């Protein structure tokens, strides 16, 4: 078994041979039947979200919960947008800088730890990696104090900072594995023999082939900053926080307006879903990268 952590960008390989695919018609039928049943189960919450968000307040009773709206209305979408609109744009101001900064840091670190190594690089890498697994509660109390003392006000700027800091391990991991599997060490040696230093090698040899790695870390960090609730609840509020805070305020009431909550949940999920649909192929690659495989 290799213990190299999974290559960062694996496009899921095509199935190997068709020789394996020799099932009886019955077997094939059962396979498809099961796949479809699971498909329906997985899509069920999505159906509920969409259908309920278009119902009018009167229709959200106990009867006909699962049926289509008798009259489709955008009222709940309007209400949800009024509640979430400002934080929706704020969350872009959070997720985009986080994605960019984390990726640059990850590329630099990953390059050094895979292709410009120094004695003890593996131990340093392991120490970095540990930061990925810690429950953030274990740093949260002093963290809140420290960012205040640095002078960061609660809200987006603070959250950009903390997401960049705690995104270093995963981005370093992704780029380290990516470079370790795609950039031959000989190229680096050749560049060194030619007298190129670290930055020059990084700039003209490494960066030009880094696009797939960047796609992965950008998607990864964008999604995790967008979806984060833990840091947000500790370091922002409904007036200056990201969309998860606003959504929780909208949906978390004792007797929530389900139609508006569900419209809100859809609004809050839209950007990550679009990213996922557009870049899904690389996203899957990114998921592989998240696995420290031994």
């Amino acid at each position, binding site marked *: 078994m290799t213990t190299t952590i999974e290559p960062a960008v694996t496009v899921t390989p095509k199935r190997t041979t068709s020789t394996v695919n020799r099932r009886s018609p019955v077997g094939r039928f059962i396979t498809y039947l099961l796949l479809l049943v699971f498909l329906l189960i997985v899509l069920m919450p999505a159906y509920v979200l969409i259908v309920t968000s278009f119902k009018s307040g009167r229709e959200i009773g106990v009867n006909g919960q699962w049926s289509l709206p008798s009259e489709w209305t955008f009222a709940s979408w309007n209400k949800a947008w009024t509640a979430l609109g400002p934080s929706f744009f704020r969350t872009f101001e959070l997720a985009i800088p986080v994605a960019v900064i984390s990726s640059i840091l990850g590329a630099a670190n990953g390059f050094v730890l895979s292709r410009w190594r120094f004695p003890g690089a*593996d131990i340093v890498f392991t120490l970095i990696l540990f930061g990925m697994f810690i429950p953030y509660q274990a740093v949260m109390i002093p963290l809140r104090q420290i960012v205040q003392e640095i002078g960061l006000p609660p809200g987006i700027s603070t959250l950009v900072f903390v997401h960049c800091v705690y995104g270093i391990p995963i981005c370093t991991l992704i780029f380290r594995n990516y470079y370790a599997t795609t950039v031959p060490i000989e190229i680096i040696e050749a560049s060194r023999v030619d007298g190129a230093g670290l930055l020059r090698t990084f700039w003209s040899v490494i960066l030009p082939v880094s696009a797939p790695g960047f796609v992965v870390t950008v998607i990864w960090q964008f999604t995790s900053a967008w979806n984060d609730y833990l840091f947000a609840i500790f370091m922002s509020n409904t007036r200056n926080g990201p969309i998860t805070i606003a959504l929780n305020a909208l949906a978390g009431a004792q007797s929530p307006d389900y139609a508006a909550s569900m419209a809100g949940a859809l609004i809050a999920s839209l950007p990550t879903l679009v990213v996922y649909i557009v870049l899904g192929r690389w996203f899957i690659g990114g998921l592989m990268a998240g696995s420290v495989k031994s």
Partner: protein
Amino acid sequence: MSKLRRWGPGLLLLSPSLVVLAIFVYGLIIWTTKLSLSGKHSAIDESKFVGLKNFTDLFTNDINDRFVHSLKNLLIFTVVFMVGTLILGLFWAFLLERGVRAEGIFRSIYLFPMAISFVASGVVWRWLMNSGTGDQAGGINAIFGKLHLGFLESTWWTHPKWGMAAMAMPAIWQLSGYVMALFLAGFRGIPAELREAALVDGASTFQLYRRVLFPQLTPTALSVMIILGHMSMKMFDLIMSVSGAQWITEVPAVYVWQTLLTSDYAKAAAISIVLLLLVAIVIVPYLIYNNRVERSQ
């Protein structure tokens, strides 16, 4: 000197990240640990050293055994979440692995819940897991009622004993596709010759999987368990979104939040450190093992 020239620039490029992580991961963990050993139970208390008192209090002197209760909840949640996600993910990968038409569509749809935040999925799962039964049935219970499967109706997460098992359902929904993708990559990474050799040797399909393919997936399964396990220990968003902070579904991560609302810093720090230790017990050996095998190559 020449060695320094060789390594120096790399270290220099790495150093900003190292400094930041040294402070914000290791430094703050030490800070929290110190806090957990102190008597700072309110904003104005001084933090004087009290030894392990906060920890022993958690286990032996907590009102209604609240902390032990939250650990039990976490245990139920973790077991159901991990087993459910592993089984579903492996089964989906198994179904897709031998090649089906429209594999990409199945894969994408199974995976899409992962793109959604726990807060958003909590909204719909709270609705689905409506605890009303009989005439008051809503959500999934209403479907059971319609299908004349009334005996399946459940009070879901409001069940005093097994509620946390229901709480794991949304998490299973969100992460099974992820596990499927990992196992699918695992299957596809097995050399085709292995299968062919087994088939030439006359292995049945069952034997092929049992003796050849599944053993090859052990490393994937290990990483999946590590990832799911540490996610489960940290579970906070989902529970806050489905039930809010409530006794019945409280886990340590939520307990920390609740304790901080009362400004009991020392106690909140102690809970956090227990949580950290629970994760570290699993992660540290794994990282060391990983590091060693890597170096032996």
